[in-house]
Structures are given as C-alpha cells and as structure tokens.
C-alpha cells in the first residue's frame, strides 16, 4: 500500500516532466546537458535562499514571517539565477558559434528555454517532495494523528503545478530575453506570477489546501497560454497542428 502510494505520488508529481523529457529532450544530448546545467543553477539559487533563511532565523521575527520573507527572497533569487542561466547558456552558445564559425545559433533557442525550464522545475520539484516521498514508502501511513489523509496527494499535485510552472516561466523568460529589447512586461509577468504562486502556498500551513491549489492551477493555465504565445504559437498554428494529423 505504501509502495503504491509512493509510486502514485511520484508519478503524479514527475510523470509529465518525465514524459516531456523522454519525448522531447532525451534524443538531444545538448538539451540533456542544459537540463542538468539548469538543475545546477536552481541548486545554487536554493543554496543562496537557504543562507538568507538562516539569517532570518537569527532575527526575532515569528517563524511564519521568517518563512514568508525567505519565500519572497527565494523567488527573486530563482529569477536572478534564471537570468544568470540565460546569460551563461547564451554566452556558451556564442562561444561555440565563434569556434565553429557558424553564423546561426548552435543551440535551438526555443529548446533552450524549454530544457532549462525542465531542469529548473524538476530540481525544485525534487527538493520540494523527495523527502516527503521517501517517508511515503513507510513504515506507517499519513493521516492518523490529525493529519490530512490526502497530504501526499496534495503535495504531489502542488509539486506538479510548480514543475509545470517552471517550464512555462522559463519559456517565457528566455523568449522575452531573446527579443531585441528584452520584453519587460513578460519578465515582470514571470516574476509576479512566481511570487503569487509561491505566496499562495504559504496558506497551506494553516488553511485548506484548496485555497492554494485551485488558484495555482489557474495560474498554470494562464502561464501556459502566455508561454505558448511567447514561444511563437497562435490559435491558427494550434489549429493547423491539430488538424494536419
């Protein structure tokens, strides 16, 4: 039973990411490396945020406030590292371009944002849920002592939500930076939705999970639309891709 729960929750959280990885990334070695590199950048940002969290811990603020402040800081931190990742990858691309004397970018720019998003998302998802999942294997089950029985389920749904959001955010973010003059509205959109989504999860510790889960999935849908648009998609292209078969 516990093992079933473990696999169910693990695939709930990472199934879509794994599917995307296998179908779109796995064939392209460069993309795989980008996934790992972006995971590494996420780690760096997590490291920085946790240092700040420790500093907040030294202050006399209440734990709730400390957590809220470090979440806000951490969101900014992640966006900064996303930007640094963009700079690193594009300068790497330029370097390679010079080496090969090629006039076109070596790395497919659209894939760049997408792969980076998967790396970012999976890494943040792993850090959010992997220890919870390890507990799910047992011994003992959740919800016996005033805990919610659907804790694992909701936790993995929220993880899925953030994995997807990170993919979309990265697509938007990279596409915005790729424009001749960086599209500030889109960058701001990423930052604001990220802040909003993370802040909503602050409600989890007190109120019902639905209070954060439902709005967060609405944000996922909204962000997905924006990402689709930012990646160059339109309604007609969607239609043609669906009907062409």
């Amino acid at each position, binding site marked *: 039973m516990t093992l079933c729960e473990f696999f169910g929750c693990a695939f709930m959280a990472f199934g879509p990411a794994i599917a995307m990885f296998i179908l779109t990334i796995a064939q*392209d*070695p*460069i993309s*795989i*490396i980008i996934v*790992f*590199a972006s*995971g*590494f950048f996420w*780690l760096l940002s*997590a*490291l920085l*945020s*946790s*240092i700040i*969290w*420790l500093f907040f811990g030294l202050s006399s603020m209440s734990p709730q406030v400390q*957590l809220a402040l*470090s*979440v806000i800081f*951490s*969101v900014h931190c*992640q966006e900064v590292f996303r930007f640094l990742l963009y700079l690193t990858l594009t300068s790497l691309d330029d370097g*390679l371009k*010079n*080496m*090969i*004397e*090629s*006039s*076109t970018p*070596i790395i497919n720019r659209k894939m760049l944002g997408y792969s980076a998003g998967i790396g970012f998302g999976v*890494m*943040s998802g*792993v*850090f*959010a*849920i*992997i*220890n*919870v999942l*390890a507990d799910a294997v047992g011994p003992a089950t959740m919800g016996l002592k005033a805990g919610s029985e659907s804790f694992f389920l*909701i*936790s993995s749904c*929220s*993880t899925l*939500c*953030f994995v997807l959001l990170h993919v979309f955010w990265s697509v938007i973010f990279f596409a915005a930076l790729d424009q001749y003059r960086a599209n500030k509205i889109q960058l701001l959109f990423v930052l604001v939705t990220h802040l909003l*989504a*993370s802040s909503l*999860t*602050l409600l*989890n*510790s007190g109120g019902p*999970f639905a209070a954060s889960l439902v709005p967060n999935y609405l944000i996922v849908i909204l962000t997905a639309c924006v990402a689709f648009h930012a990646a160059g998609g339109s309604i007609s292209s969607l239609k043609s891709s669906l009907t062409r078969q």
Partner: protein
Amino acid sequence: MAVRVSLPKLCFTSRMSGLLDEAAGLMDGHIDEARVRGDDFDEVRDRNPERRHKERRSRPRPEQAENINDGDVNSAPGRAGDQSAEWLNDQEELRYGAQHVIKLFVPVSLCMLVVVSTISSIGFYSKKDGIYLVYTPFHETSPLASTKVWNALANAGILMVVIIIMTIGLILLYKYRCYMVIHGWLILSSFILLFIFSYLYLEECLRAYNIALDHITAVLLLWNFGVMGMICIHWVGPLRLQQAYLIFVAALMALVFIKYLPEWTTWVVLGVISIWDLVAVLTPNGPLRILVETAQERNENIFPALIYSSTVVYSIVGTANNETTGSSSGVQMDSPGDTESGFVPSWREEASEREAARRRAMDEEEVQIRPRNSSQNDVANELGLGDGEHLGDDQQRRQPAGRSPFRIREDEERGVKLGLGDFIFYSVLVGKASSYGDWNTTFACFVAILIGLCLTLLLLAVLKKALPALPISITFGLIFYFASTLLVAPFSDSLASHQVFI
C-alpha cells in the same frame, strides 16, 4: 590533441574536439603511433594547422578543434561553397561531442544508482560494525571532534601512501616489463571482487529481503556470474555485458569503501584523492607522466582495462570516415596525458581489479572496431601491417594539394572513456551522502558531480591537454554535500513541513 582526461584510476577520453574519423580504432592508433612517432612526433604542432585545414574542408569536424586556427580555416580555398552543409556538420559535431558527455552520464548514473539503492535498502553497507580496512588503523572512536579530525587525517595519509606506493610499484613493474606480474595482479583483484565480494553482496541482499537460498544454488549462481565476469573483463564478451560488469565491479568497490572506511576518513580521503589526481596527472614528474612517457617510448597501450569505454562512438565514427582519415592514419598522441597513462598511475591496489576490467574493455573495443573500420575505410584500419603503404598514399594525396605530408593524427578518437576509479569515488561520495538518509543531499551531490564532469569535459575540449577527472567533480560534490546538509536541507525541510513551494 588527443583529448582525454587521464586520471589516476580514471581516464577519460573524450573526443569532443576530435575528428570524427579519428576513430580509426584504438589498436590501430597505437600501432600507427608506434611506427610514426620517432620521426613525426615533433612535427605535430606545426603541422596541425595544415592538417586541420585540410580536414575541415573534407569533413565535418568537432567544434573545438578549430579554435586554434580560425584564420587558417577561413582562408581555406574551396570552403565557401559548402557553408550550409558545413553548418549542419558543425551542429552534428556539437551534438556528437555532447553525446559523449551523455555516454558518460549514463554509466556514472547507473553506478551511483546501484550504490545508492544498495545503501538505502541494505543496512549492512551503512552500518559500522567496528571492522575497517587495514590501512585505516585509527577508528575515530573518540567523541572529540579534534581527535576524529586527527584520526581521519592520519588514516587518509596512510591510505594515500599505500596508493602512491602501489602506483610506483606498478610503474616499476611496467618499466621493467613484468607484464605477467601485472596481469596476474589484475586478474587476482578482479577474481576477488567478482567472487568474494559478490558473495558478500549476495548474502547481504538475501538477508535484507529475508530470502532463503541453499548453498548449492548460491555457489552455482556465483560461479556462473564470476566466471562470466572474468571472461568478459579479461578476454572477450558482448560489450554491454562487459560494461555492466565494469559498472558492477566499480559499485562493489565503492560499497566496500563506504562500509569499511571510518566516517570522517571517507570525506578526507575523497578530498585527498582528488588532489593526488591533480598532482599525478598535471605535474611534470607525476607518476602518470612517467608512465605515459614510457608507454610512448614503447608505443604501447598501457592497461586499457582500467577504463570504462563506450564503443557506440565507434559506429558513429565509422560512418563518417572518408579518405582524409586514411591519410591521417599515422598517429598522433601528442598529448602527454594519454588515456592509458592515465589509468595506470591511478591504480591503487584495491582498484587494481578494475584495471583488469578496463583492459578488457579496451580489447573489446578493438575487436569491434576493426571489422567496422575495415568495411568502411580500408585506409584507416590497417593494423600497422599495411601502414607503410597507406602512409605513402597519404603523402601522395596530400602533396598535390601543396601540403607536406604529415601522418600525425591530431586527435585520436577512441570513444568515451572514464577510469573506473572515477566511477568508484563518485559513487562513494553519492553513496556516503545517501547513507545519512537525506535525499535532497544525495540528489544535490549527484547533479553537482555530473556538472563537474561536464565542466571537466569542456575544459578538456578547450585546453586540449590531459586533465584529471576527479578534482572538479569531487570538489563540487563535497561543497554541495556540506552545503546542502547544513543549509539547504533544513530550509527545504521547513518548506516541506509547511507545504510551501518556491
């Protein structure tokens, strides 16, 4: 230009910057090298530009090779016509280089997976029962941190001395051509690993899952497993099977280290070993260097068994062959840190088992490569017998083009190779991290090590000299281990307990 990372115990040849066709084959390369080296070795550097230039026109090339002679390449006549084709080729080559990285990621990850899953499911390997390696006489039993540090440093020092002595012994044996002794040593070590340590592993597995097994079946299983392993590692066998054995052997060795090294000693040893790696590979008098020089004098391939190699590369290479390859079939290894040299020094005694394993790997490659090459490119694959003629052909071909003939292959492509020692120490780090039960830390170490490997490869492609594979990865791994145990883990635990997502 041979791109390889040679480490003590791990050597890694990446041909990120190599030419596709250089893959003419390990053995061929070595033989060629032997023949050519005397006269051509000095020419390597000055001639490279011409060669490159020529090759560039005729074939797709890996990205890194060019950076040295951009100007030269650009001025090459006849290049303008195939810009777009070239671009495609460049992309192909970049992918090809990246593919090498992935070809290493997979086995390294598999090895770590074996170690981590064993550690987390079988308590035996993470439990300290007071038995330690002979080389670590100080058992860190004192509660005082200062004493523990002192113990750990002393243990690591002793272990390093043993490793250095073994390395020097191996070099001496090699220098005085005691091949039988070396082979005997390697076979004995792989025998011990494949039979005794596998038996222990099997026993603990059965115990952990509470499965009953009679002795006769167990002996039968072990006998088949071990004999097949010995055959695959030291003689011939399917490539996949051999790779699997190498990975398993590395994982077993890593488990032994995790189990029988005292707590703090493990961390100190990891740090010290990567420094030793650096010294052995990079200093002019490092054992690795000495070994390489000896090997070059003799034009031999030293103990190929120390390396994990992916042969898949060869098939790719084979398709890319063209006449240029043939022309460059003379060989090259101008880089001081040959792969083979890399492994030998690295070998410490415990690791010697691996050596055997790797050697086997190399042999296997040769076997596979030869037929392919010959079918695709007659020029490229001569095993040395035909070289004289071929070289002559090359010269003739090139001379009309206004170039002096050179027979030095700038980059000997041999697929991707990573010393088993690297596998072991990467796995020790990740396994040790997982033995504390925090998956965030384990995952962070895993990603950090792979990124370190990536960076090593990138540096390799840029610097084009032999580099040790341990230092960057292990440094990253250690930093992320301690950073995430002390900082990230408490933070992410508190986020998880409040179900806050960032």
